[in-house]
């Protein structure tokens, strides 16, 4: 039956056409999706790289502050305070590198009038510091404007991990 055969051929041809068009549209849609995903990934990488660079820059500034502490002399604060010792700044530098690896950098590093290097952390209305004393002590203090300060005495060469845990849990 030529008519039936002709009709089937026409139907097959239409189906083929639709399939081809569908595939082309699907391919195009997939291509757009892939493109979007590509740009999203690129954006994520750029943002992450910018954060990395920012963190790197901050770390270098803090490291510079720490190095400058080594040039202070007796009475640097005009109240006859001791300058931070080489050992205290060395321990503080190790601690700073650990903090860098943990993406938990302090906001500033200053000399302590008690003799040593102090790393200050600020987050919202919470404050904390760690002081590496010339005496070998490591002090961690957590405080804000109202509550009774929390003071923990540690040993500078052994308790750095504990200090980081305390700081992290306070700012969590």
């Amino acid at each position, binding site marked *: 039956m030529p008519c039936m055969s002709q009709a089937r051929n026409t139907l097959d041809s239409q189906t083929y056409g639709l399939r081809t068009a569908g595939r082309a549209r699907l391919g195009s849609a997939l291509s757009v999706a892939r493109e979007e995903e590509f740009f999203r990934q690129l954006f994520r990488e750029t943002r992450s790289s910018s954060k990395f660079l920012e963190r790197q820059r901050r770390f270098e500034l803090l490291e510079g502050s720490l190095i400058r502490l080594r040039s202070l002399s007796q009475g*640097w*604060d*005009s*109240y*006859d*305070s001791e300058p931070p010792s080489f050992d205290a700044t060395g321990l503080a530098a190790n601690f700073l590198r650990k903090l860098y690896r943990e993406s938990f950098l302090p*906001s*500033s590093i*200053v*000399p*302590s*009038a*008690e*003799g040593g290097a*102090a790393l*200050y952390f*600020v987050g919202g209305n919470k404050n904390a*510091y760690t*002081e590496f004393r010339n005496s070998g*002590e490591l*002090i961690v*203090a957590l*405080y804000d*404007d109202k509550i*009774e*300060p929390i*003071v923990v*005495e540690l040993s500078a060469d052994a308790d750095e991990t504990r200090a980081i845990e305390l700081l992290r849990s306070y700012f969590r």
Partner: protein
Amino acid sequence: MPMKQEQSSFLEAISGNTPPIHQDSKPPVDSFQNDELLYRRYLSEHFNGGKILPASFRFPRQSFNRSRFSKPEDVLHPDCCGGKALSTQGEWGVLECRVGQIPSPVGSLDGRSSYIFSPKHVPTPTCYAHSELWCRKDSSDADEYDNPPTSVKETFRIKLARVMAVRIPTV
């Protein structure tokens, strides 16, 4: 070491060229009123986020000038800095607090002892206003100085930093 030109001019401008009061055999005056001010110099790097950092204070016997015999700017004058001009490496300002704001008493961690902090007038030959913050256990005599444990020292430094306000910003 000579002072920076701008710092020297600043000091002359604010002090009106009047040096701090010298002791000249005058005896110390023991009593302090609660509303009397205490002045202390500070370094700009110890001022962060609108507040003075506890790292600015050390034990024992923190030095201040009492306002009864001193202008705020006197603490920047060489006569009240042990005869030395302030280092040109730093930028200096002046803090103040009232005697009644001194955080006292401060309890030890174990709760067994309490430490009382109070000002004592300790004039020097060229700085009659020079005073110190003394610390003693609540059970000790008023003239004794007791060295407090680390937790009391840190708590006191933090609380003292809370009450100190800027009187003269750093230059």
